[in-house]
């Protein structure tokens, strides 16, 4: 009997992600507390505003989840997002229809992602350095091409499509929900997506198993840049304009969502899209609660930072206690 109980306990503990569960519990507690304190918390408007407020971070966090699982990091997303928004607006103002314009900027973003991985391999440095340099380059480019202003006055056909609602939801929110569902299924079921786990867990072993690690890494950085481009396009849908200032600290917020959701930055090969969505909901909820309650938002970063430390502590001290750390193999 005792053996059976112990086995059941082990099975439950095995299936239960303690970090994700702790974050879900916090989400429930904060939501209940806020609904008592503030009447409009559960209103349709506030829920939509809360979800909409983290759409760019959400779309980017999906791509970053794969990057972090692969053992890398991509800071260029904070440059790609405004870059795409600006180029997309410029193309439309130059007379390019919004659909081909979209294809052009997505292709440009894919090229930036490929450059990220190419330089990483060529220079044999940590992706932190390369992607930070690409972010700075793109931000400088954004300033130069916009003259540090904004681009607006977009064509009428785009203004009309950007106002469309699907089931009462704005297009950026619908796009995020669809992408989240797609990435979740693909990362769980698709063979190519699953290779990211093997590469992140142990690139040398993955290579020996016949996985083309470099090809997987190209894919990881390209999908991250393309998703950042989608976030940029969605910003244009939301604001009907583009400005060089978009995306300030966007990378930090997206990485926070990924890590709070349980994807490990210290060990590759660990993480789930579901966890990232939980992390996103959590930081969006914290942000929304601060604004609604009127507490100084300066404290928001303190709270978010504290939870980030908490997430890493839970991961290192409880979830992966006694398990070997990430190998320092190079792909």
């Amino acid at each position, binding site marked *: 009997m005792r053996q059976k109980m112990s086995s059941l306990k082990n099975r439950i503990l095995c299936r239960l992600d303690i970090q994700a569960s702790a974050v879900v519990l916090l989400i429930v507690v904060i939501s209940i507390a806020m609904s008592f304190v503030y009447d409009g918390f559960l*209103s349709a408007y506030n829920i939509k505003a809360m979800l*909409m407020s983290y759409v760019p971070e959400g779309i980017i966090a999906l791509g970053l989840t794969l990057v972090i699982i692969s053992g890398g990091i991509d800071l260029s997303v904070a440059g790609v997002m405004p870059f795409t928004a600006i180029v997309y607006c410029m193309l439309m103002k130059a007379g390019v229809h919004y659909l081909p314009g979209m294809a052009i900027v997505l292709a440009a973003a894919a090229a930036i992602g490929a450059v990220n991985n190419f330089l990483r391999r060529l220079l044999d440095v940590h992706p932190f350095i390369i992607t930070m340099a690409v972010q700075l380059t793109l931000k400088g480019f954004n*300033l130069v091409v916009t*003259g*540090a202003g904004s681009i*607006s006055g977009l064509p009428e056909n785009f203004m009309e499509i950007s106002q469309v609602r699907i089931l009462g939801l704005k297009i950026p929110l619908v796009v995020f929900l669809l992408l989240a569902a797609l990435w979740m299924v693909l990362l769980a079921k698709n063979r190519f997506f699953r290779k990211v786990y093997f590469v992140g867990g142990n690139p040398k072993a993955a290579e020996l198993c016949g996985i083309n690690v470099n090809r997987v890494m190209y894919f990881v950085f390209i999908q991250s840049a393309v998703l950042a481009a989608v976030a940029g396009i969605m910003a244009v849908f939301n*604001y009907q304009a583009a400005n060089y200032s978009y*995306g300030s600290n966007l990378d930090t917020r997206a990485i926070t969502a990924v890590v709070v959701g349980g994807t490990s930055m210290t060990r590759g090969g660990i993480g789930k899209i579901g966890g990232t969505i939980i992390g996103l909901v959590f930081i969006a909820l914290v942000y929304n609660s601060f*604004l609604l309650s009127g507490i100084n*938002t300066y404290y928001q970063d303190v709270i978010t930072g504290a939870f980030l430390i908490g997430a890493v502590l839970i991961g290192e001290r409880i979830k992966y206690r006694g398990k070997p750390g990430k190998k320092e193999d190079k792909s």
Partner: protein
Amino acid sequence: MKKRTRTTLAMVLVLALLLTAGACGGKKSEEGSGAADRSDELYVYVTFEKGSEYFNWVYAGFLAAADELGVKAELQGPADADASQEAKVLDTVTGKHPNGILAACADQDTMVSAINNALGEGIPVITCDSDCPGSDRLCYLGTDNSSFGAVAAEYIGEQLGGSGEVIIVTLFGSAAQEERCAGFNDHLAEHYPGIRVVETCNESGDTATAESNTTAALQANPGVKAVFSTGGTGSAGAAAAVRTIGRTEEIVVVGSDFGTATLECMEKGEIHATVVDDPYMMGYQSMLQLFAAAHPTDIISANAPYGHITTSDIYFGCSLVTAEEYTENADLKEKYTNTPSFN
């Protein structure tokens, strides 16, 4: 029995009359007591670069007027100049259904949909300092930025004796600071054609960036004789850059606003003068306008369904304070060194 009934009836009637009279008297005295309880009313000031001294002065004025009116006030916004973050804040604040929103806009295009969305929810929105003319905001209160730039140009023109090279340090993308640049350039072109602006560099809303960009601009243009910073954030950065290249004695630095760092540089003689407007009054007057907008009277206004506020924009003046005036005038020091802060 009949008599007792009559007596009881009479007592009830008298009691009823007394109660009615009491109630009437009570109502009368309540009406006579004046102001209604407005402590539940909330007015929100949404800004970018939240925490900057300039916007803290605006909020101090906004808050003082709110206290006078007996309503609540709140300050919200991102700590940087990311317009998309500010739009996000405004959208969330709209969900609180405040009685009015005052917005200082990081970017006039990005903020359009968030402002119109709030108005669509029936919330009066006005702008201050940095406008959003493409939106349906009810009115704008701000500094006459063209004159602001002209005041700086006049001082530099006099100091340089009508000829020389100048660098402008500004916040790219800020409509208010672009107007200051334009006012500065126009005044020089008209009154001091011998003075040439050789470079306009970006402070990016950060003093350290202002310093590094100005240093680079000064090194590339060794003939520069004056620097004008169109914003408060860049003023101390511009002064630090001049100090870094060791030309404090030769280059005239004109700053903007009266931030602590700017005032310290003035005391040390690193900033020769600063152009000041009145952000406190801007905040105070904005609150009064917003309150009026949220309280329509029986007479229909030009901003219907909102209350009686101006449909034209309101501009405030500006003036120049030199380092000598500042260091010698105790009243000026007293006014400018009591910087408000909000936590």
